[in-house]
């Protein structure tokens, strides 16, 4: 390790396993200097949150520390005695949690919450002045009225600021941030990130920033440690790791990350991350790795320090090709000028009697064959409601939906079989989109049987073909959804929609619950399907990078209205509406920034 003796944080050989003996994280060694920021990156199941919690001396119930030491500012953190560890929390190290809404005690006023933290580490009673100072630090109002509010009376961004104020209340030298912006809107996220950055530079604060989002991490981190299956696979200066990754997984992760400024073809990582119980003896990434050799499956590569100051856990690190961003995507030319789907002056309303809420209004657009139209907006912008109106799950309050020039009835059950067949939808949550009590095969076959009148044998053949199309092994058909990973489930959901033989496919945030490497693979499937089957695609998302990757044209929605429309190129590069501009400015980009590099060298 490159840890200097006066390192603020020093983690050595940390290994944590479940009580059953399955390893969760293994051989984690980290070091961090005063005032530096480490980005801890990994996808779900990589163990990054376990490491983060352990930095606070907290070992989750059901887990135990096998070996390893953590030292912060020269003081050892006791990993076996919760009571002793608790004395260090807040004073030496503090946490900004993932979900601000559930992390604040609903029965305590804001002032009380902050006072509790202050009193835990100072003797005596904390007064309103001290509470006010803590709030002021994160630019929250310091009025008595604000301190007397309950958490539910704050917005998500304000709640997170309160938690940041708690984390800083006792001025610890190290703050751990566990996906602190994941649940927030992109604009709020940008504000919170700016706030964190500012506090960091003002206060010589060292930070460990845990996230699955490379783009977000790249905005803050000096150093990045990438975790895969419980181990660090690459660790080094941020600019180096992001521009010249040496581990094939890091490289794959970067290649999977969409970007809204330079749209490009994504390269997803094939396969699925190994489960906790199935970690192989050799390199855990080997099954998904393009450059694996026989040795990779037999022995575990060590985390080898390289000449350039980073460490990589790969036998073949030398062979890792430089980053190759796929060619910029050429916009597909619509095959026909005639729209298949036409939405005109649509208005949709939620609620009943008295308490109505207009979710969408004045919505008009057209989708042609082979065209992908993206509907972009934050949560609450009405985009999902529009999708539900199109497929007949929600009756429109005004306006109409036309398919091939024919007006559709408001509700699905009033539409003809062929109309239902030609317009299909894929939903957001992969854990809810499949019936947990039916075999996957049966669910994919159902639309073919119901809407196309296929015989049992024909449907079976169709299922086999569809599985191939969405790149799923045929044997998965025999399984129940709970035996599948999120990405697999979402592909099954796509196959189910395709089984109807649709002309239009509505994708409602289909990748937002997926890891980035899986998202890339699913997007790839969708793009290919769109080309080959000449589908009209309505792609609903809040992620501008995804828009740039898949869409030909874009509608930007805010509060149920269209605020901007145009081709992807126009909207993303020359936005005219202030809201679009704000969204674009706030969207994080993967960058090994000059600014960050400059800052680091300045300090040295």
């Amino acid at each position, binding site marked *: 390790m490159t840890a200097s003796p006066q390192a603020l944080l020093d983690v050595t050989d940390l290994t944590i396993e479940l009580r059953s003996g399955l390893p969760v994280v293994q051989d984690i060694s980290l070091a961090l200097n005063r005032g530096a920021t480490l980005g801890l990156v990994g996808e779900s*199941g990589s163990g990054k949150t376990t490491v983060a919690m352990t930095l606070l001396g907290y070992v989750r119930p059901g887990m135990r520390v096998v070996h390893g030491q953590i030292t912060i500012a020269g003081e050892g953190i006791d990993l076996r005695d919760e009571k002793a560890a608790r004395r260090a929390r807040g004073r030496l190290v503090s946490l900004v949690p993932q979900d601000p809404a559930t992390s604040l005690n609903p029965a305590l006023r804001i002032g009380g919450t902050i006072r509790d933290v202050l009193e835990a580490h100072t003797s005596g009673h904390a007064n309103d002045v001290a509470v006010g100072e803590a709030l002021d630090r994160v630019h929250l109002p310091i009025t008595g009225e604000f301190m007397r509010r309950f958490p539910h009376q704050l917005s998500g961004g304000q709640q997170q600021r309160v938690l940041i104020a708690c984390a800083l209340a006792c001025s610890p030298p190290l703050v751990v941030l566990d996906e602190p912006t994941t649940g927030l809107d992109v604009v709020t996220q940008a504000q919170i990130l700016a706030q964190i950055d500012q506090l960091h530079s003002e206060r010589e604060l060292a930070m460990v920033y845990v996230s699955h989002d490379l783009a977000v991490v790249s905005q803050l981190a000096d150093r990045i440690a990438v975790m895969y299956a419980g181990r660090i696979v690459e660790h080094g200066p941020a600019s180096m790791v992001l521009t010249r990754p040496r581990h094939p997984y890091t490289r794959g992760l970067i290649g999977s990350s969409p970007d809204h400024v330079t749209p490009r073809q994504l390269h997803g990582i094939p396969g699925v991350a190994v489960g906790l119980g199935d970690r192989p003896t050799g390199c855990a990434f080997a099954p998904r790795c393009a450059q694996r050799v026989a040795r990779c499956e037999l022995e575990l590569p060590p985390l080898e320090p390289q000449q350039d100051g980073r460490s990589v856990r790969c036998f073949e690190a030398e062979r890792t090709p430089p980053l190759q961003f796929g060619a910029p995507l050429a916009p597909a030319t619509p095959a026909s000028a005639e729209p298949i789907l036409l939405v005109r002056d649509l208005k949709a309303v939620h609620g009943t009697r008295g308490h109505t809420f207009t979710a969408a209004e004045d919505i008009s657009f057209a989708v042609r064959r082979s065209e992908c139209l993206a509907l972009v907006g934050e949560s609450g912008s009405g985009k999902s409601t529009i999708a539900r109106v199109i497929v007949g799950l929600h009756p429109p309050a005004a306006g109409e939906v036309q398919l091939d020039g024919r007006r559709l009835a408001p509700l*699905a059950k009033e539409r003809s079989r062929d109309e*239902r067949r030609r317009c299909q939808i894929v939903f957001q949550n992969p854990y809810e989109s*499949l019936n*947990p009590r039916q075999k996957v095969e049966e669910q994919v076959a159902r639309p073919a049987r*119901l809407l196309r009148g296929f015989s049992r044998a024909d449907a079976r053949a169709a299922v086999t073909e569809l599985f191939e199309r969405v790149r799923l092994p045929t044997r998965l058909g025999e399984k129940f959804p709970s035996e599948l990973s999120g990405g697999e489930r979402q592909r099954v959901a796509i196959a*189910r929609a395709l089984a109807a033989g649709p002309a239009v496919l509505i994708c409602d945030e289909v990748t937002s619950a997926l890891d980035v490497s899986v998202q890339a693979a699913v997007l790839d499937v969708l793009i290919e399907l769109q080309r080959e089957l000449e589908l009209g695609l309505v792609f609903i998302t809040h992620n501008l990078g995804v828009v740039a990757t898949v869409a030909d044209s874009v509608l930007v929605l805010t509060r149920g209205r269209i605020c901007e429309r145009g081709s992807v190129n126009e909207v993303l590069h020359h936005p005219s509406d202030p809201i679009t501009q704000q969204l674009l400015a706030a969207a994080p980009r993967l960058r090994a920034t000059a600014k960050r590099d400059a800052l680091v060298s300045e300090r040295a």
Partner: protein
Amino acid sequence: MRHRLRFARTRRGQFGLVIVAIVLAIALLGPFVSPHGPSQLTGAPGAPPGGGHLLGTDYLGHDVLSRVLWGGRSVISLALSATALGFALGTTIGLIAGYSRGIVDSLLMRSVDVILAFPPLLFFLIIVTSVGYSEGVLICGVAVVQAPGIARIVYSATREVSVAAYVEAAVARGETTAAILRRELLPNTLPTLIANLGLTLTYSVLLTAAVNFLGLGLQPPAANWALMISENRTILSLNPWAVVVPATLIAALTIGVNLVGDAISISLGRSETTVDARVDPAAAIMQGNLIATPQGPET
């Protein structure tokens, strides 16, 4: 489904199963080994054990052991019929109301609320007042008293399932309501139902027994454990066994069923902490802890 019998491996589950098996054996096989008929007068009233009567005689002079061996069948058959009927009724109401929304929903669930506004036994007494008492009334009455609770549970489980994307997908592809109820909703509310089976059955035994005890169900000289407790209270100081033995058997049955039910619902993936639906549906609804289907990423 793979873990169908997992509950039998917990200690509580095993203990409960053994108790239930013993009580069931006594109830079902008892009549075959009974020394006397259930309504055969064989000695002086209220005699303590001895003289050919292992458990003594009851207030009329029947052999207590024989009454005990004959008296379990009706305890079990009444409870089972009432539970089955209550489940059928409650599930139907809950499924239909939960899926249909609108006027049908409000109508059904408001009627359920009205029944729930009465203490269960009181509602049963009102039924008895209006139609008199008999075995049929007993079964139907207990079923009607239980159905609202079950309906509530199925209702909220259905509501929760019916907003799931796979149900929306089924609606969008134009499946009939019957197909949606059968293929999508019922299979996914089933675990909730099974998890509640144990408690409902326990409650059925309690309620039918209470009604028999109050003299509003089976009538003497029928042999029934609950009835025995009631009729032999007058000779408690002469031959307490005539009360203690049937009381112990009923307690063993309800405790056993409850332990098994608890073990089943835990094995169904309802964590021990979200079981309150079994304890009390109303409280469970209040806390919003009803869905039993384990979902979510398996880390």
